[in-house]
């Protein structure tokens, strides 16, 4: 399930939704991203972020997220996937993104959630603008995010495929 919305979301509700995947669900991983008041360590010296504005490309962003989810489902056996991304104006401490995965075993759920976040950061059509010190500035993609996403291509590894029987 994909939702792109200005409204906040409720972790407990999303978790309950993922639990509905049937008796085969043995593991649920949820990730929630929050708006920080700085963008990397080097910028800690600068002015604090007052607001964060999220722009997307209606239609195309949804399709790109569908592609990313399809790819995760090809790699891992998942009984449920939820991706929520907020848009519009947010403040430090606000929830901005949610990724939830349900699977038979934890290795698949963990790996898929991490894959979804890494690809969402580098491939989904969202753009962030921050306001700090009374000035607006668009953010650049971080090298660390690029690296995080590229490891999935390099390894082609599928953690969880032969995961153990325990949760």
């Amino acid at each position: 399930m994909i939702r792109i919305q200005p409204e906040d979301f409720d972790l407990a509700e999303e978790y309950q939704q993922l639990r509905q995947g049937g008796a085969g669900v043995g593991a649920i991983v949820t990730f929630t991203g929050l708006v920080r008041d700085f963008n990397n360590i080097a910028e800690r010296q600068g002015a604090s972020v007052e607001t964060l504005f999220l722009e997307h490309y209606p239609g195309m962003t949804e399709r790109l997220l569908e592609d990313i989810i399809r790819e995760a489902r090809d790699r891992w056996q998942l009984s449920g996937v939820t991706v929520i991304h907020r848009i519009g104006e947010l403040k430090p401490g606000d929830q901005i993104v949610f990724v939830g995965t349900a699977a038979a075993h934890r290795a698949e759920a963990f790996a898929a959630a991490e894959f979804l976040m890494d690809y969402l950061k580098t491939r989904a059509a969202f753009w962030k603008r921050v306001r700090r010190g009374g000035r607006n500035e668009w953010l650049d993609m971080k090298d660390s995010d690029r690296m995080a996403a590229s490891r999935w291509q390099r390894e082609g590894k599928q953690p969880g495929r032969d995961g153990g029987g325990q949760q």
Partner: protein
Amino acid sequence: MIRVLFFGRLGEYAENGRMELTSPPAPGTAAALRDHLGAVDAGLGKALAEPQVMVAVNQEVVDWDSPIHDGDEVAFLPPVTGG
């Protein structure tokens, strides 16, 4: 008519991040449109020339030599920063 959309920092070069052109600039490729826009506004031209800027036609990312037809929606996309 073609509809041109600009996202992220590119949006600052067009009112509301969009503009309309009566027809695709010759020879009718995405690169030709980019060059045309750069000739009209040097600042935009410089921003569009950044190597990481991508172009989408009708919401599909395409190569710069892809054709643009009347009625298309063309979007210029800087590197994404979601999540």
